[in-house]
């Protein structure tokens, strides 16, 4: 089963939950870092050899000798990525979504596609964990294509954990789409509650099964728990606030190795997820 770990608000503990949960799996596991703007999983896992692959998107290139300025391309393009200012078409690569439309409608066959780099995918291995990370190049706006490329490397035969970016917009949707289950990590503060409600709206609109992990319990109040009860949302785990967890995190150390109570919490979470996976499989069969 693919399990995605997301949150509306940033910094609530997605990466901490993902990396420590991965550590407790015994069988082979794929761990995907879909927070391609700020990937962090590698900071917590000692990895050996890293295999890097350049990821590109196709961008149109106009042959000025063939283009007759008919504007079929600019009429079709919804993103103003190709315009015909004078006699020939001009491309704005940073606006382009790589749909391929301009190339297909060009009656002169004057448009070809050229691959343009947007980032890299890093693959490495630590024990039974296969880590696959996307890393977007600085200055690149089109993040979802790189996330899709990371997710294309999923092996459906394995257990898969996905660390999603924060928020609720297209990079998050691209990351969690198709997951069998989503864990939403939050904290018991007004910001945590507000952004959790947005994330819940998002996963519900996508029709995904989900539950909530409340991190740093004790720093705020009970409003997140009350919200979950009211909305009939499963609270998978509550993690007590503990400065030792924050300090381990700051050093890039696995919290489950530094704080025994935290390891216990994460193994409870893992058991709950395993039960859910069995339930899901049963649901699919019936």
């Amino acid at each position, binding site marked *: 089963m693919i399990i995605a770990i997301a949150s509306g608000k940033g910094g609530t503990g997605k990466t901490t939950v993902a990396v420590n949960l991965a550590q407790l799996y015994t069988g082979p596991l794929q761990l995907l870092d879909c927070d391609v703007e700020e990937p*962090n999983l590698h900071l917590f896992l000692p990895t050996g050899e890293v295999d890097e692959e350049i990821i590109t998107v196709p961008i149109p290139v106009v042959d000025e000798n063939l283009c007759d300025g008919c504007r079929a391309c600019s009429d079709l393009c919804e993103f103003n990525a190709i315009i015909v200012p004078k006699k020939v078409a001009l491309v704005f690569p940073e606006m382009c979504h790589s749909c391929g439309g301009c190339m297909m409608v060009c009656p002169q066959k004057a448009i070809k596609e050229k691959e343009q780099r947007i980032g890299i995918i890093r693959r490495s291995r630590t024990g039974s964990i296969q880590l696959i990370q996307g890393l977007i190049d600085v200055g690149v*706006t089109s993040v979802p294509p790189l996330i899709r490329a990371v997710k294309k490397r999923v092996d459906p035969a394995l257990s898969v954990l996905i660390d999603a970016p*924060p928020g609720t917009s297209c990079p998050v949707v691209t990351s969690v789409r198709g997951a069998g289950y989503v864990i939403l990590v939050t904290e018991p503060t007004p910001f945590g509650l507000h952004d959790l409600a947005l994330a819940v709206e998002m996963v519900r609109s996508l029709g995904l099964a989900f539950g909530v992990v409340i991190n740093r319990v004790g720093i705020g109040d009970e409003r997140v728990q009350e919200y979950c009860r009211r909305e009939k949302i499963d609270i998978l785990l509550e993690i007590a606030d503990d400065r030792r967890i924050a300090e381990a995190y700051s050093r890039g150390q696995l919290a489950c190795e530094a704080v025994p109570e935290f390891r216990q919490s994460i193994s409870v979470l893992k058991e709950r997820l395993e039960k859910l996976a069995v339930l899901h499989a049963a649901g699919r069969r019936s």
Partner: protein
Amino acid sequence: MIRELVIISGKGGTGKTSLTASLAVLAGRVIMADCDVDAADLHLLFPPRNREKQPFYSGHEAIIRPADCIGCGLCLAYCRFDAVQMRGGATGHALFTIDPAACEGCGLCVHFCPTGAIDFPERLCGEWMISDTRIGPMVHARLGVAAENSGKLVSLVRKQARELAEKEGIGLIITDGPPGIGCPVIASVTGASQVLAVTEPTLSGEHDLGRVLGLARHFDLPAAVCVNKWDLNPEMTERIESKARLSGAQIVGRIRYDSGVTRAMMQEKSIVETDTPAADDIRAVWEQLK
């Protein structure tokens, strides 16, 4: 000229919004702009009274009319966003639908559909608001659930904030930026007067700050850096500050780890409106910035 200070972080949850709120209080006459449009939180500290509320339409969305679909599958063949899904239809031929969460609105399927069975209405992507708060005006927005085009909504919020600043003769805009370094962040910082990157003394904070300062250099923006919760790991704070200096950023101060920060949030106040040690640190940061 209107000065625009944008608070960003790379990594989420380092204290952008809490710091933005406090700096706005210290600044006095200021326009606040909340550019974290898919998880906007500034309004939770400054309850807004809406002056103006507008829908945000952006792009289009392809929708197949099942009655007119002949099941040829051209749309599936052309779509590069895995947005077209195939199901068996009741009449025997395949039935195609479009997943709105995956559709990027390129319109290729609409153009090529042989029976013209695909509608292409404008997409409602959210709303934006101009509000009054207890400390001054705020421009903010709400991106629709699972919606696209956050960058365009960010640009719209900034444009409205600039117009409002001109109209009201206010010389400073303080902007709460989104996390990351992608499209909405780029839309938040391009053309700004200065960015303030707030980070935390963790390996992730260090890593993500490096990327966000890279972005500031890429767009040739003056950058300032502030380490929040610095005493959680003093050695890491030193390391982050010296790296930031090397990359040309100005260090504008440190904020200590203080449970009063969360207490202020629970009371729906900015930190500097409460009496807690971190408030002094933030006042010192503002002295460097103003």
